C-alpha cells in the first residue's frame, strides 16, 4: 500500500482549487466547490498545496471541539496552537520524541541549509532571518546527542557530483546530467520520464549521503554501534521523509535516515518543549560531520548546487581557482535559465530549472534531442528549497516575494561570511576522503553515496 504523505481533510476543504494551481503534477482531483483529493500515485509530495491552503478549522464554522479533535487526529502535541488547514502533511514529532526518550539510542541530527534562514520566522523574527547558531543551540536543548549538519554532506555531494560530471564530459557519458538532490524532482522524472533516468546524477541527495555517513564513518568516530544510532533530519521539504523511506536508502546496512521533520515540525517541537528560541545563544554544529563551507549553504537556493559545483569543478578541471567565487550567471529566480561558463578550454553549458512546472518543456527538448547542455540543476519548489513545502507557512501569500527574497539574501550572506566557500576546501571533507572514502567516485563512495533509482515509483 502506498503510504500517504500529504492529504486534504475532506471535512475542511472548500473546493477552492487554489492548490491545483500550484500542484506541479496534476495530482489533486475533484470538482469545484467540492472537497479535493490528492492522488498518491501522482503526488510528488512537494507540499506546495500545504503552503497554499487557507481553509482552516474554524470556531465559527466547525465549532470549538473540532480543533482539538483534528489536532489529535494529526498526532500533534497539546501545546500546538496554530491553525489547522485542510491540506496537510503527517507529523512525525512523536517518533522523534520517543527516540529522544530511549536511553539505548544515540541520537544524531542534521539540518538542511534552508532551515536556518527560515525557522526563526515561526518565533516572530522578520522573514528570512539567519539563525544558524540558534538552530544548533535549539537542537542541543532538545536533547540530540550530536548536532551535525546536512551542509557537510552538501560539500561531499559537490565532490562526488562534480567528479561525476567531469567524468561524464571526459569519457563521453550520458549528458546532460541532471542534479538528483531534490526527491520530488526525482519522483517526477520517474513518473513522467522514466526513459530519461540515465540523465540523473547517480549521487544521493545530501540528506541521504549524510545519513549513510552517520551510520558508517560517524558510528566509527563516535564508537557507537550503527544499530543504536538514530538518525533524524530536519528539512524544508515534505518529500524528504518519503525519500528516506525508499528501499535504496539502506546502504549503511540499516535505514540511513530514520525520520525526517520539516522546518515547521521542528518549530512545533521546540515550542512543545518550552524552549525560548529567540533567547538562545549562537552555538556551533558538531565536528566533523557538521563542518561546512559557503558552497554547501547555497544548496538552499535555486542555482546554488550549480554554483557550488562550478566553484569546485573549475578547480578540479583546470587546477586553478575559479576567478570569481560568486558565479552570478547561474543565480536568479527565472523558471529556466542557462549560461555558458568557460572552464579552461571547455565551454560548460549549464541550465537551472526552479519550479517543477518549468521542467516539462526542458524534458520535452531533452527527449527531442534539442537540449544542448552539460549540466542541469532542477528544484521543485518555486525558488528552491528556501520556498519548500515544509518551510514556515505564510499567512498571506502576498508576502511570498518578501519571504523568499529575504531567505535567498540571508543564504548568500551566510555564504559570504564563512571562512571557506568551496566544498573541496572543507578540511573535514578532505579528512573523510583521506581516512575513509579514499577518493570521489571510489569504491566506498559508490557503495554509500551513489545509487541507482530503481523500482516502481508507485511503491515508494
Amino acid at each position, binding site marked *: 500500500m502506498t503510504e500517504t504523505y500529504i492529504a486534504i481533510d475532506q471535512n475542511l476543504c472548500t473546493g*477552492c482549487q487554489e492548490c491545483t494551481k500550484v500542484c506541479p503534477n496534476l495530482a489533486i482531483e475533484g470538482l469545484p*466547490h467540492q472537497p479535493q483529493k490528492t492522488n498518491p500515485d501522482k503526488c510528488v509530495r512537494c507540499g506546495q498545496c500545504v503552503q497554499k491552503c487557507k481553509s482552516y478549522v474554524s*470556531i*465559527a464554522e466547525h465549532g470549538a471541539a473540532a480543533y482539538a479533535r483534528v489536532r489529535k487526529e494529526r498526532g500533534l502535541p497539546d501545546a500546538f496552537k496554530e*491553525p489547522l488547514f485542510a491540506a496537510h502533511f503527517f507529523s512525525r514529532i512523536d517518533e522523534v520524541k520517543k527516540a529522544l526518550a530511549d536511553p539505548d539510542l544515540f541520537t544524531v541530527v542534521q539540518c538542511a541549509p534552508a532551515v536556518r534562514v527560515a525557522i526563526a*520566522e515561526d518565533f516572530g523574527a522578520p522573514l528570512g532571518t539567519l539563525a544558524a547558531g540558534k538552530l544548533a543551540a535549539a537542537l542541543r536543548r532538545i536533547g540530540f546527542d550530536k548536532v551535525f549538519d546536512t551542509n557537510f554532506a552538501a560539500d561531499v555531494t559537490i565532490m562526488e557530483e562534480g567528479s561525476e560530471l567531469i567524468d561524464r564530459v571526459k569519457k563521453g557519458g550520458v549528458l546532460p546530467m541532471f542534479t538528483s538532490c531534490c526527491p520530488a524532482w526525482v519522483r517526477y522524472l520517474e513518473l513522467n520520464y522514466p526513459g530519461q533516468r540515465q540523465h540523473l546524477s547517480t549521487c544521493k541527495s545530501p540528506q541521504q549521503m549524510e545519513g549513510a555517513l552517520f551510520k558508517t564513518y560517524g558510528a566509527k568516530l563516535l564508537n557507537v554501534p550503527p544499530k543504536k544510532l538514530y538518525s533524524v533530519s530536519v528539512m524544508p521539504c515534505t518529500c524528504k521523509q518519503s525519500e528516506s523511506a525508499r528501499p535504496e536508502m539502506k546502504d549503511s546496512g540499516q535505514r540511513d535516515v530514520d525520520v525526517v521533520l520539516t522546518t515547521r515540525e521542528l518549530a512545533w517541537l521546540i515550542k512543545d518543549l518550552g524552549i525560548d528560541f529567540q533567547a538562545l545563544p549562537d552555538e556551533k554544529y558538531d565536528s566533523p560531520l557538521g563542518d561546512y563551507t559557503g558552497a554547501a549553504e547555497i544548496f538552499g537556493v535555486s542555482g546554488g548546487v550549480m554554483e557550488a559545483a562550478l566553484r569546485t569543478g573549475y578547480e578540479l578541471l583546470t587546477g586553478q581557482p575559479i576567478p570569481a567565487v560568486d558565479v552570478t550567471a547561474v543565480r536568479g529566480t527565472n523558471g529556466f535559465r542557462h549560461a555558458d561558463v568557460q572552464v579552461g578550454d571547455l565551454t560548460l553549458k549549464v541550465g537551472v530549472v526552479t519550479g517543477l512546472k518549468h521542467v516539462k518543456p526542458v524534458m520535452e527538448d531533452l527527449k527531442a534531442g534539442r537540449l544542448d547542455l552539460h549540466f542541469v540543476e532542477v528544484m521543485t519548489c518555486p525558488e528552491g528549497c528556501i520556498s519548500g513545502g515544509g518551510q514556515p507557512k*505564510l499567512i498571506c*501569500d502576498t508576502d511570498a516575494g518578501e519571504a523568499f527574497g529575504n531567505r535567498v539574501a540571508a543564504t548568500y550572506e551566510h555564504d559570504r561570511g564563512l571562512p571557506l566557500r568551496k566544498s573541496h576546501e572543507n578540511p573535514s571533507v578532505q579528512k573523510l576522503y583521506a581516512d575513509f572514502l579514499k577518493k570521489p567516485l571510489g569504491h566506498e563512495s559508490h557503495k554509500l553515496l551513489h545509487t541507482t533509482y530503481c523500482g516502481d515509483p508507485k511503491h515508494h
Partner: protein
Amino acid sequence: MPSEFGLFVSTDIAKCSGCKACEMACFQSHNIKRNNVGKTVGTISVPVTPKLYVTVIETASMPVQCKHCENSPCKAVCQQKAISRVGSQIIVDEAKCIGCKDCLMACPFGAIALLPFYVGGRQAPQADSSGGKVAASKCDLCYEDPEGPACVRVCPNEALRLTDVNEERKKKNIAAAEALAVINAGDPGRRALS
C-alpha cells in the same frame, strides 16, 4: 471627495474561489498588535477569528461581510452602545460587548459572529471572571490600517473590491449615457434635428 455613505467590500461571486485567504488576512491584520501575530502561521497562538465569513454553497462561494448599513440595525439594537459609527464605518467595541447576540439577530446578512476575544495571547476574562470572553466580530474595513482592507489586498482572484456606492452609481450613469450617445449619434434623423 470621501463618500457620504459607508464604504464596503463587495465580491464578484464569479471570481471568488472560496479559498479563505481573505479570512486569514483579516485575522492577521487585526491581531498583529493584539496577539503578536507575525507573517507566518507559526506565530499564531490564538484561534483564528476573522471578521468576514466565506460561505460555500453548491455552485458558488463568497465571503459575507458587513455592508456598513446607513440605518444599521446592529447599532440600533445594541443597548451597550458597543456598536458605533466611526467616520463612515460601523465598528464594534469588543470591550463594551456583553455577548447578548442582539446584533447577530438584527443583521439580515449574518455578517456578525460571536467569537472568543483574545488579548496578549490569552482569552480575555468575562466580566465576572467565570470564563473566557466572547465578542461580536464583524468587518471594520481595517479602518486602522492605512493600506485599507487586508481581504481586498490578498484575494488571489481579485474578487474583492472596496466599493463606494456613489462612485459606482456615477460610473454606471456615465456608461449608460455613453451607450445612449452612441445610439443617438448613429441616428441621422436626430443629428439633422440638432
